[in-house]
């Protein structure tokens, strides 16, 4: 074994100390989970070990893993479609007067009020069991998140920059593309971050009610077969996916690319 130099050891110890809070909070969660599992019994509330074994079963079986990919694909599709529809609607409302009233008084409030479960049931009638239903449920529910964020974002963008650009050209598309859109990127990013965690849950509901594939459908199947450990395992995988996206993918991307041009606070 190579001897650890004092400087390296200090850095290593500091890294461990820095993660101490995280390790302690994870340990408390696992202990609580373990305690509940013992008290309620493995068939009602499977403990962490049983769940990890069930997760292993899923990950080692390609026929089961594909459902993770299906749910992920539907979620990404739903979020991207919502972003696109919201961008068109908000820009339309911002720059086309007659649509503004309809957008603010009818479209946006209606979208916000529609319950996702009712949408899922109707979508089954309209699209049948499958991807269309799941994506529809995601779009209807995620759309208001993008709409309100983009609408408010447009209000607070730096109007002096738009004015500067408007002296250079009268071409609105060019101004939107080169000035307005880059200013909206941070808004879009935070909406996307929030939308993903919401969309995964909605995908699960949509698949549970209106699909024959995906993680939601697998949760439904497992519940029908009284395999509580598998219900836990699918849910655990979904939580891992959301945590990974939020804390690793989005946070790292945000730190590395999004705010590099801003003055450090």
């Amino acid at each position, binding site marked *: 074994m190579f001897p650890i130099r004092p400087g390296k050891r200090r850095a290593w110890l500091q890294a461990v100390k820095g993660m101490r809070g995280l390790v302690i909070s994870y340990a408390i969660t696992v202990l609580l989970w373990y305690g509940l599992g013992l008290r309620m019994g493995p068939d009602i509330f499977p403990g962490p070990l049983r769940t990890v074994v069930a997760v292993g079963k899923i990950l080692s079986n390609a026929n089961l893993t594909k459902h993770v990919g299906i749910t992920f694909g539907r979620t990404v599709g739903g979020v991207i479609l919502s972003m696109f529809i919201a961008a068109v609607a908000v820009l339309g409302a911002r720059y086309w007067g007659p649509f503004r009233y309809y957008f603010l008084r009818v479209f946006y409030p209606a979208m916000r009020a529609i319950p996702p479960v009712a949408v899922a049931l109707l979508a089954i009638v309209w699209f049948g069991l499958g991807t269309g239903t799941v994506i529809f449920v995601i779009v209807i529910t995620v759309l208001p998140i993008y709409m309100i964020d983009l609408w408010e974002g447009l209000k607070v963008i730096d109007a002096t920059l738009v004015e500067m650009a408007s*002296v250079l050209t009268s071409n609105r598309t060019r101004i939107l593309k080169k000035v307005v859109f880059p200013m909206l990127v941070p808004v879009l990013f935070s909406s996307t971050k929030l939308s993903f965690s919401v969309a995964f849950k909605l995908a699960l509901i949509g698949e549970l009610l209106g699909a024959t594939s995906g993680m939601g459908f697998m949760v439904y199947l497992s519940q029908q077969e009284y395999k509580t450990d598998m219900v836990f395992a699918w849910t655990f995988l979904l939580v891992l996916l959301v945590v990974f996206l939020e804390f690793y993918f989005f946070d790292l991307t945000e730190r590395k690319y999004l705010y590099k041009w801003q003055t450090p606070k």
Partner: protein
Amino acid sequence: MADSEMIEVRQLGKRFGSLQVLDNLSFKVAQGEFVTIFGPSGCGKTTLLRILATLEQPDEGAIVVDGVDGSSRHEEYKGKISVVWQDPRLLPWRTAVQNVTFALEMRHPEVSKEEARSRANETLKLVGLMDFAGHLPRQLSGGMRQRINLARALVLDADIMLMDEPLSNLNEITEKRQLMNEIARLWEVKRKTVIYVTHSVSEAVYLSDRILVFSDKPTTLLEEVRVSLSRPRNLTSRTAEEIGNHISELFGGMIG
């Protein structure tokens, strides 16, 4: 309009609600002339510049630039002007050189990326910022940001440059002095028609061929002062001081 005349402002009027900001304002600017619009703060100088830049519509009168009527607000009119803003208005996510190429991307999308970059680099060299081409605005001083603002206007090679108090946001006297020298030097190189707005007598005397002194609201033309001093100018010379004092006295010595 005579051949040498670049801008003609005819009986211009502008109201904001019941407040008459500009009233029956008329003047002409010759091609290649450096004209300063001088007046106390809030007298409507910036409003006039915004009308010239097509950001506001006049209520009365017209502006004709090189034969093109400004009230029609056509791209042709816009193509003849560039603006140096009071605050630099740089895109914070773009580097210095990208902020300069931005002007070409917006006005002349037909210019290739390579050509835009090469023209932007040349202009940055002209304003002494070539070594900072890759820096983001937040990494530059106020004076440097203002030079990029100047470069962004210069790269367009438009006939007319409108400058709205470009030195007023600079804190350091040395930075102000440097940029003032830079503007004078660049004007001598490029010989563009410049309309420069300021409420500083020294800037007006140092830079201009002619100073249009405006009264307070409603803004009318109080006096035209011709500055026939050789360049580079010495603000401590007797004639420069006399011109400065004369302008200050028009406002009872309250401005300078």
